């Protein structure tokens, strides 16, 4: 539980776009992630804001291990 709360806080970012996407993602998807996916999500949160946004906006090629999460992130607002 504490771990999830930490992840929830770390979705607070420097860019509004990411705040919006990640808070939606946490609401809609976080409970459904298996431990392996959760671990990758934690790594994703350690990435730089402009990079994260560029991946979600399909402006930069997404590293393979993030493919699944970025695809899900792209869908949360649709």
């Amino acid at each position: 539980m504490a771990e999830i709360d930490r992840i929830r806080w770390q979705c607070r970012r420097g860019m509004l776009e990411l705040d919006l996407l990640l808070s939606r993602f946490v609401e809609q998807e976080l409970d459904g992630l298996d431990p392996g996916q959760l671990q990758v999500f934690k790594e994703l949160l350690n990435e730089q804001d402009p990079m994260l946004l560029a991946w979600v906006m399909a402006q930069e090629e997404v590293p393979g291990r993030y493919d699944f999460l970025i695809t899900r992130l792209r869908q949360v607002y649709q």
Partner: protein
Amino acid sequence: MAITTRQFDAVVVGAGGSGLRAALQLAEAKLRVAVLSKVFPTRSHTVAAQGGVSASLGNEEPDNWHWHMYDTVKGSDYLGDQDAIEFMCRKASEAVIELEHYGMPFDRLDNGKIYQRPFGGHTSNYGERAVKRACAAADRTGHAMLHTLYQRNVRAHTQFFVEWMALDLIRNQAGDVLGVVAMEMETGEVMVLHSKATLLATGGAGRIYAASTNAFINTGDGLGMAARAGIPLEDMEFWQFHPTGVAGAGVLITEGVRGEGGFLLNKNGERFMERYAPTVKDLASRDVVSRAMATEIKEGRGAGKDADYILLKLDHLGADVIDKRLPGIREIAIKFANVDPAKDPIPVVPTCHYQMGGIPTNMHGQVLAGHSGGAIVKGLYAAGECACVSVHGANRLGTNSLLDLLVFGKASGEQVVKDLAADVLSHQDLPKDAADRSQSRLARLDSAKSGESVHEVGAELRRTMQLHCGVFRFPDSLAEGVRKINEVVQRAGSLYFKDKSKVFNTARVEALELENLVEVAVSTMVSAHARQESRGAHDRSDFPNRDDAQWMKHTFWYKEGNRLEYRPVQLKPLTVESFEPKARVY
């Protein structure tokens, strides 16, 4: 209850551009520095700054700081203090070159010098023509700046307290600031950071508006702390707005959309800009467009079920043109407005972007104790968007925000170093009640068994500010706004959340943040209601003109008694002739 206390020479609250720049100055002087930040430093909101940082390097064409100074004074609509503006513009080149030497990856010209591009409001020869003055690192200038400064701080052994939230300032009987009370989010533990100098660099508080481009962390924590400690807030009625943010989300839609032929519609499908600006229509300046949009909404012609937004139509351009000339726009609209602009219009509203006012300081970052004279609060400094020095006055010039944080981050750091070397500051005895205010705030929140929802009160605060104190301000609406925001204050006095756990309790953090937003919102509303003129970003329907005889003065709001006082604008620069006020026409 015993409370852990740690001593530092200096505590910096906030690790965005200004906090990092100030901390660097302190750490390189071998002082023991603690920097507190709610989020990892490189995730501060400075990361969102894309445009660049201005300096009259003259790498592309002749330029000098006098012209930059003129542009800034004019841009401020003559509310900026000309001594501080001269100081900033003269220091700009040095600040940028220093950053270059730290390894900042600026874009470069073929000859190796820093590339510069034109930016709105920057001119050569006192307004004659546009000049290339903005230095950038692609569209990631703020990001590159944060990284460069963070790395440099690590090298200088700055100690970071990441995921810590400062709660309150500690002041003694004499009014001196002796440090802060702060909370570690991971444990919920409260600690006293006892310091000789305390520097606030907490950024802006744009989250007071329902439509805001600001990240969620921008809750004005430093302003709330200052207000609760009896320190006034200056010029809070001045907030910069962008005409087209996505309604309900705040994400910006570039002005390029209208440049490429997009236009605005009201709920009747009328292209209303034809009435407000018959020749240039949707390409009128930002303030004209924002004012027209606000008027349409105010008069009941907004779209949507609450008639509270405007439609930005661009489907007539066709998907091909949109994709080619406006890359990313479709993606943004689909993600954040849930519409494909190749088929449907985007709902937009004027959206808050930047806070010109803040904690009053002199140009050395020392916080002013009050509206009259130069008396300072001993031990307290502020820099960046949370401070009001005032270089932006009533309206900030693009690229001057990054410059502000570099120049005044450094200047305030230098002043702390100087004051410590001169033994002006020391670890004075902590008062017995040092942590009382913070602890009673926390105790009240933790013991509340019922009360107001943080989410609902926050939403009401943001709605009230947007509706009654937005980009264009109407007298009846402002008066109503003062009444409504005072209701919000009452409700915010009994916040309640269910989860009382200590570990990363976001609900508790958000309640504490809301208490800070409340101070910012009240000061904004009350200051705006009182200022009976239009100047820069403060635009009133009942007083459409600037009134230099009555209002060329800074507003000082005091929390105690919700009281306003005024301070004359400093028209006298440091070494050059004053720029006399004239009409601000571009």
